[in-house]
């Protein structure tokens, strides 16, 4: 199953609703391109909604980290919303929960952006 991404604006924050699996190949390419395009358009407050992401592998984690470093390198912010238990566990064992700000409520997440 390919990764689908849809963007929407909420109070100055770009919320990206992702659906599918973020795995090696087309899906990670899609995610990297989505983030690069948003940064290219000057969007620097990005919230990735992972509520419908069923699966992430090491390549997908790499794409998330790459997005994070790109955004923070340009004074932007990348945060995560609605992790499934599976994805939460994956971020926990890889210690990436110490890197990403993670939210379970969209309004709270949007308000957290400076």
């Amino acid at each position: 199953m390919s990764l689908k991404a849809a963007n929407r604006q909420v109070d100055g924050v770009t919320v990206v609703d992702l659906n599918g699996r973020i795995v090696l190949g087309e899906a990670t390419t899609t995610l990297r391109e989505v983030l690069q395009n948003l940064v290219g358009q000057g969007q620097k407050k990005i919230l990735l909604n992972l509520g419908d992401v069923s699966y992430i592998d090491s390549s997908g984690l790499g794409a998330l980290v790459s997005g994070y470093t790109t955004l923070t390198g340009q004074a932007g912010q990348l945060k995560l919303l609605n992790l499934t238990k599976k994805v939460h566990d994956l971020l926990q064992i890889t210690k990436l929960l110490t890197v990403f700000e993670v939210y379970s409520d969209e309004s709270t997440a949007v308000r957290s952006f400076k």
Partner: protein
Amino acid sequence: MFPAERLALVLESTQRSVELADRIVRRFSMKAGCTEQQQNEISLAVREVVANAVFHGNAGDARKKVSLAAEVRERGIVICVRDEGPGFDPASLPNPCDPANLLLDHGRGVFLVNASMDQVTMRRLDSCGMEVTMIKYL
């Protein structure tokens, strides 16, 4: 499609092989009685090991193959993946959880294999290639 007790595949050194191995081994583990969580953990480990074999071991060389065998034994599912590359020393891999490595966009594959399976052995073959044997207890 195949008996639940044993499975053997020879895969091309292409990205498609990662999806193929994932799909077939997931079905094998389901037939073997694994829980959904066990299937997911096995699936992740197989994806990572086959991707390493294809892209790092065989370096995408179309002349080189990846072999995968899975078997149900008394203690669990045993999965063995071999490539035809130069091999590597697992002990030399940096720890991706080290704060200095957390922001790297690569280097988590072998860590996830070890975290997903109950027992993992990696060794260079005397002939050529790397062999990874993984066990998930049932």
